[in-house]
């Protein structure tokens, strides 16, 4: 069965600095990988996805993520953090073509310090 791990419960970054939120995954087939963001009292919002192709994918709000097959990782990145980026970030995976279920990690709270 597929699984996804987010090793950090919280990440603190100073505003203007680059940020990275880590994610590793485990699948039997081909990984479809996703990042979602959850702002307070809001539902989850889709940020970006990796299906195939270029290992660096770009998404909403200036975020990007790098797929690394050898390290089974899909880290979320942004060159310059904003205070408004403070939120809960979830990595998710689908095990193609074995399973249609999308499995979410436990989440990482990103705190951008002004």
């Amino acid at each position, binding site marked *: 069965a597929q699984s996804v791990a987010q090793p950090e419960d919280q990440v603190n970054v100073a505003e203007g600095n680059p940020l990275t939120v880590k994610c590793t995954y485990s699948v039997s087939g081909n990984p*479809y*990988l*996703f990042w979602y963001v959850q702002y307070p*009292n*809001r*539902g*989850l*919002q*889709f940020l970006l*996805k990796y*299906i195939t192709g270029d290992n660096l994918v770009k998404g909403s709000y200036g975020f990007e993520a790098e797929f690394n097959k050898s390290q089974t990782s899909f880290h979320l990145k942004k060159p310059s953090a904003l205070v408004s980026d403070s939120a809960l970030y*979830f990595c*998710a995976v*689908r095990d*193609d073509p074995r399973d*249609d*279920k*999308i*499995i*979410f*990690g*436990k*989440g990482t709270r990103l705190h951008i310090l002004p």
Partner: protein
Amino acid sequence: EAGVAQSPRYKIIEKRQSVAFWCNPISGHATLYWYQQILGQGPKLLIQFQNNGVVDDSQLPKDRFSAERLKGVDSTLKIQPAKLEDSAVYLCASSLDQGLLGKLFFGSGTQLSVL
């Protein structure tokens, strides 16, 4: 475009009582999901519908949870009887493509507290 609508926003009940949540997906979205998000954890899929048929309910505690999606549009999730460990946010989501490309649209959720 209207988003995924859920109600109620909050619900407080005592254990052994019953509760129901309602979800109206985005118009035209054939796939509907119910996720349970316990504090400090990621969302866990409870049930996935394709139109009015169940695609996956392997993690639904069927002795107390039930869900239906009559007419392939709105859906209700029911818990009867509730336990303390059911305290969580219940998220409804919908998608166009069975979620194959991972783009799910989530509602704001129903926060359930079981006392």
